[in-house]
């Protein structure tokens, strides 16, 4: 898997590069629009990490060019600018995902991996299971150790998100995007509230929570 990183801030770019290399991805880091064009013309890439604020142009312009010329691989957009407008414009122009700065490098790797997986594999599982928690996506029934558990539609969606990303730390931003389709921050502690409700229903004991809090990052399945 070969990934092109377009990021003008060298130190941020190196962080991304190192993290992706650790995951055994091959990377190439460029800092300018012109270099990015050349790089893509020279060799094919499986995915692109694209920063929008580049010294010689707008990353969104590059994205439009690539999509117009038939480049179909996933593109993950990074931006430090106006998050809301960039996200909407980026997704409209054919970006597959959007990550506002400052981001966690783990989050970036996780999102990129899920983009590549979505791109390559076929239909997904209809039953998700994790340590006795079972979620049937077709009949929409949740159970714990064989006993059915009543869930509201939000709780069901949140549990499904956790079970689909069993090892990943889910940030609040990611959860808000996926469950509430929110381009804006939810402002309240709504996500914490729903995680608490899931814990109440699925925790076997107080000492071993079913969903654990990763301070400064988000939540993760235990």
């Amino acid at each position, binding site marked *: 898997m070969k990934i092109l990183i377009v990021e003008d801030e060298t130190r941020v770019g190196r962080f991304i590069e190192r993290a992706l290399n650790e995951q055994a991805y091959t990377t190439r880091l460029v800092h300018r629009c012109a270099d990015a064009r050349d790089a893509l013309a020279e060799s094919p890439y499986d995915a692109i990490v694209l920063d929008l604020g580049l010294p010689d142009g707008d990353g969104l312009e590059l994205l439009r060019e690539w999509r117009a010329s038939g480049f179909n691989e996933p593109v993950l957009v990074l931006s430090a600018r106006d998050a809301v407008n960039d996200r909407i414009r980026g997704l409209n122009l054919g970006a597959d995902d959007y990550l506002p700065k400052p981001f966690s490098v783990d989050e970036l790797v996780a999102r990129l991996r899920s983009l590549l997986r979505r791109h390559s594999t076929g239909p997904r599982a209809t039953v998700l299971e994790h340590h006795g928690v079972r979620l049937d996506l077709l009949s929409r029934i949740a159970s714990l150790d064989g006993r059915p558990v009543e869930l509201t539609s939000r709780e069901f969606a949140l549990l499904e998100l956790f079970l689909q990303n069993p090892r990943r730390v889910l940030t609040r931003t990611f959860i808000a995007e996926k469950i509430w389709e929110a381009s804006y921050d939810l402002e309240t*502690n709504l996500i914490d509230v729903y995680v*608490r409700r899931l814990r109440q229903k699925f925790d076997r004991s107080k000492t071993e929570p079913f969903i654990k809090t990763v301070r400064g990052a988000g939540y993760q399945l235990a």
Partner: protein
Amino acid sequence: MKSFTVRLTLQFAALVTATTAAVLVAGGFLLDHENERGLELLHAIEARELGELIGRDSALTATDIADRIKHDADSDAALFVIQVATARGDVVFRSDNLGDTILPDLPDDEPHWTTSVPLLGRVHLTEATHGPWRIHIGSPLEPSERLLRDYIRISVPLVFGAALLSVALGYAFSRATLRPVRAIESIAQRIRADQLSDRIPVPAGHDELASLTTLLNQMFDRLQSSFEQVRRFTADASHELKTPLALIRLNAEKLRSRAQQDPECAATVTDILEEIARLQHMIDRLLFLAQTESGAFAPALRPLAIQTLITDFAADATALAEDRNTRFAVGRNEPGELRGEPDLLRQLLLNLVGNAVAASPPGTLITLDSFPAVDDHWHFVITDEGPGLSPAQLERVFDRFARFESPDAASSKPRGHGLGLAICRSIAELHHGSIRLENRPDRSGLRVTVELPR
């Protein structure tokens, strides 16, 4: 119709009507005056004729005089009444059309006089002396009065006609006069944050409108440049603030992964990461406020089914309330449509319910009502049973970083960034609406009303 057009029309109409009326009144006076002058000329000619017929012989008897002028007096009976008297005042001849009436003597020095005479009505008299005779010639004023009445009968409708016509003309005139102003108005309305480059075409010439237009355009230039400064500033500020923040975060994460063996070090790094998240959140909020308040951010509004929006929202609000052992209920949930951005509206309502939950003692009720008001606005009303706010707090509730002690301040750690209500107000204003906070009149508690145009 704008009031200025109305005012201009009415002023124009009043002016035209008053002028018409004044001209007609003056005409009436002139007509009356000229009529009398004409009669006086005729009287002078008739008096000379009669004088020549009578002669200067003072010995003539009444019969002689009658012989000499009777024929003449009869033939002019339709025009004149005639009376001849001696210098002493003895009447020696009276024309038949006088009947029993004797014409009075005129005051001294007055050759002409108007007086009422029995049977004849008002009569205009002329007195002429011919030798020993004093000749009175009079003409009934009835025909000229009839003429004047006719004149007035025509004039009154003329004035009304002029009034009506001048209203119509005045309206057309003021519309035409104000056309350039309306052009300026319509373009100025179009010039908003998302279309600041438009300018009003400057009319040809060097008149007042041209200079006004130039002035307005200069103002738009300044406005555009300051808008662009805000845009550039927010873009620059977010880039300049977030890039170092990104590096700090990346470095902190690297540190944390290496500090697993040292719990104290790991905890410190975790604290740093949490503070970075808070800072990031705060920067986002401040940029959002800066952009909405400057008009640099205008979300696309689209028609929304309100009832569905509220039903969806109720599930989240109930979860928020139950988490703090309070209750949430939807009161009125009327069907209807509203132009809005669903994400932002949900954020607005979540924020308000979140505040209400935070202020509510356990077991109390938070209510949301959603209904169309009589004034063409849609109202979302959130009421709680908390302590409400003091007048001083109500006054600065929308200030940035304003945070209020909740009644159980000791038990709850400070949450949030004090920007919540400022953001709520920004969102309401992005929807061209407003937000209002007041204490409940029926009991303790706060009532928040969001009014959005439908």
